[in-house]
């Protein structure tokens, strides 16, 4: 896995999370600019999945394949599912749900990296 790219994804997700929580503090419901921010993070996660797929096809293997794939799928699903749950109630709580979903992304990316390199599968 490309460490620099993973760090970039994690930092972007954290930035959008901070943005979400600022909006929560200002009592704002989720709006389009924030959703575009989430979409950008999701796009980076899809690129990361492509990188992982290319590495797997070229013969590299993570320490634990099942765990690796679980984190890969989880990292792709957390933002869409979180958004569906958040938008069902358009209030500051919805915005907070988006923030929670964004905070989950760096955790998943970090674990994805650990599992790939074999430290603590």
């Amino acid at each position, binding site marked *: 896995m490309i460490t620099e790219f993973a760090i970039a994804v994690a930092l972007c997700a954290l930035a959008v999370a901070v943005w979400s929580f600022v909006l929560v503090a200002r009592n704002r419901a989720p709006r389009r600019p924030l959703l575009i921010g989430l979409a950008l993070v999701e796009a980076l996660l899809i690129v990361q999945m492509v990188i992982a797929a290319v590495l797997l096809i070229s013969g590299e293997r993570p320490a*634990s394949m099942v765990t690796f794939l*679980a984190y890969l799928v989880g990292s792709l699903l957390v933002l869409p599912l979180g958004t569906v749950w958040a938008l069902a109630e358009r209030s500051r709580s919805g915005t907070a749900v988006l923030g929670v979903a964004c905070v989950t992304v760096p955790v998943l990316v970090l674990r994805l990296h650990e599992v790939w390199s074999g430290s603590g599968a």
Partner: protein
Amino acid sequence: MPDGTAPSREGSDVPATASGPGRVLVAVYAIFAVGATSRAGVQIATRFGEAPIPYALSAFAAVVYVLATVALARSGTAWWRVALAACTVELVGVLTVGTLSVVDAAAFPDATVWSTFGRGYLFIPLVLPVLGLLWLRRTSPTRTPR
């Protein structure tokens, strides 16, 4: 008053468990439900023989998280009670397993979500049931409306 019965317990006085702050709570619970279920699944499928008790506990914790998530996301008195039971079991579980894993580390060679009070998960497993129970108190169907 259209009829002479007691005021509805499902009225707007008492918020549903999945609305407002409860929405965030359900989101965090859902993350732990998926995480704990996947983790327990992998542990049991790949190396159950190494540490059956912690892995069985992992699976139990996963069931509790799933139950709490579903119950908090639904409305109605019955689901409120299920949520109360799940959060209570969760709190007892994290305190018991947390204490045991500190006192008798040899019995817990591999981590569960509740080991050392959920330290591996930023102590969220310890905080979550407390927040859950506080929220359930706020949304209690038997709470007298003011």
